[in-house]
């Protein structure tokens, strides 16, 4: 998945943000997809709130699930 999708999201004001996964018609978020997941993680490796990611609730749930799976299997850190 392209890096640009997530960088553009924060330029829009809060009211006009659209879910990036809905606009690109992505149904399943993979826990192996580390380049995308890193955008949804804090500097301290905590999962970002959907208020800041601009993702809809359905996809935010999938994202958090994917991050937790990646953490468990040793692909991502719990903290830094």
């Amino acid at each position, binding site marked *: 998945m392209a890096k640009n999708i997530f960088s553009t999201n924060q330029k829009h004001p809060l009211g006009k943000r659209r879910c990036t996964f809905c606009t690109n018609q992505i149904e399943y978020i*993979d826990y192996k997809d580390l380049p995308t997941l890193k955008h949804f993680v804090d500097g301290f490796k905590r999962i970002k709130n959907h208020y800041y990611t601009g993702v809809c609730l359905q996809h935010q749930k999938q994202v958090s699930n994917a991050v937790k799976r990646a953490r*468990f299997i040793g692909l991502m850190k719990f903290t830094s």
Partner: protein
Amino acid sequence: MAKKTKNAEAAVAVEAERKPYELMFILKPDMLETAYKKKLKDFKEFLENSKAVVSVEDIWGKRPLAYRIKQKDDGIYVVYNFVAPANFIHEINEHLRIDTEILRHLMISLPKNYAYNVFKEEPMEEKAVKKEKKPFKRERRIEEHDVRKTPDSSGEKPVKIEPKKEDVSEEKRKPDKANLDEKLDKLLGGGDLNM
């Protein structure tokens, strides 16, 4: 009671759906290639003997772990995609849990329209700019420190300003030298040649 449980087991066996699953596990990094390939071959046979159809077998190889697991910093990652009856999953999990050469495993069920993808990781970012800035600061600090060490001799401001003064003096001297040469030529030319 026994009859009831047997009936229940039979019913579960009949009803068990075949679902797609993904399995990822981490092997110990000390294992040789021949050893872990043989192990994976055996495991694949174990899967296929119990009515599972393996669609993807991806060996990532050795890569660093994000944190230490069972006192290991690296691990050999392996991914399997297969379709299996749901009542068989518990058996596989037990098999993997008991195995001492497996650090950790993760079994998840997949959606129906899933295609296996390989994701490329970006290379690590190098912070070259910050490294250049640091020594500059240190040099400045050292200079200030040296100045503080030799303060008592006079009220004038010390070593830092001296090079600037030297530059100014050099600039001033150059025109002086030229003038001096001209004057000397005049004086000498007037005196010596006539003599």
